[in-house]
């Protein structure tokens, strides 16, 4: 049976939501991993949850990337293990250099906390394998620093490698300025690495896995990861 781990850093606050979504809703064995852990053997998927690690001191994710567990996460990702960074987890992946680019304060001086529409730009990742290209998923965001930035060259590389996984869009799937909640370049809401086993996304799939929460689209992300693992295509062991 495959096993997932949810990392807890000082200041993580979406860890319990991720744990619940994986263990209770999706139904996959899941454990918490303390940030001082250095050994991730036995895990198949790792979640870096949202929150305000280390108080967001210096820059979001800047200090968390030096936590002992992050070296293990880098090695785990290198070997093909699945890693998903959500919100602050995305910011940590950027600071750690596991994904390209950086995060800035929202362009319109607001903490954005609302449901948004996301266009699935590529179904060619475990995280989006349940979608067809161009599908629109509804998920909540909750962040003050979610303005994704990459310089033109890095952006061109992301485009060329089809590494842009989600873009903010309107209900019909059109990428518009009005649908961009934070000023991210190219409406980017989520990207993956070249090997396509590491995903960073600002929206919170763990907060929308049950109908009573307003949407169940988040389940697709986790179920995609689990079914990808069961297929054995992505784990390199």
């Amino acid at each position, binding site marked *: 049976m495959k096993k997932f781990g949810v990392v807890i850093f000082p200041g993580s606050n979406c860890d319990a939501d991720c744990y619940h979504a994986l263990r209770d809703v999706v139904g996959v064995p899941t454990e918490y991993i303390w940030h001082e852990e250095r050994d991730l053997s036995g895990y198949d998927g790792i979640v870096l949850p949202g929150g305000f690690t280390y108080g967001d001191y210096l820059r979001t994710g800047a200090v968390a990337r030096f936590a002992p567990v992050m070296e293990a996460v880098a090695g785990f990702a290198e070997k093909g293990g699945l890693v998903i960074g959500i919100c602050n987890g995305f910011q940590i992946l950027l600071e750690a250099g596991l994904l390209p680019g*950086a995060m*800035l304060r929202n362009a319109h*001086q607001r903490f954005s906390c609302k449901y948004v529409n996301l266009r699935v730009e590529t179904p060619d990742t475990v995280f989006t394998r349940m979608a067809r290209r161009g599908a629109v998923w509804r998920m909540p965001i909750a962040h003050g620093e979610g303005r994704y*930035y990459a310089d033109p060259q890095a952006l061109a590389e992301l485009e060329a490698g089809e590494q842009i996984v989600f873009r903010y869009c309107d209900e019909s799937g059109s990428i518009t300025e009005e649908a961009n909640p934070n*000023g991210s370049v190219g409406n980017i809401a989520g990207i993956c690495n070249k090997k396509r086993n590491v995903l960073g996304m600002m929206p919170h799939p763990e907060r929308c896995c049950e109908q009573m929460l307003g949407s169940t689209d988040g389940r697709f992300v986790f179920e995609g990861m689990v079914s990808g693992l069961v297929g054995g295509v992505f784990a390199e062991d």
Partner: protein
Amino acid sequence: MKARIVITLKQTVLDAQGATVQKALCNLGFSDVNEVRMGKYIEVVVADGSEAEVRQQVDEMCKKLLANPIIEDYRFELEGQEGKK
């Protein structure tokens, strides 16, 4: 020896905080304010050594942690290195 480090967003990056403060200053009546850029100021005290050594050390600190070279520029000056060149 003390390093006084100033970190700012690159000119090519929109400074949302600075833009907001600029608007507030204009609302206050300072209508001549054309631009505000906000940044961080950090003081780091390190053991005395040769200026070149300390300079290299602080530069590395900035590159590895204190600044994010993708979005930020940094500069610093050293204080207290007199006579220790």
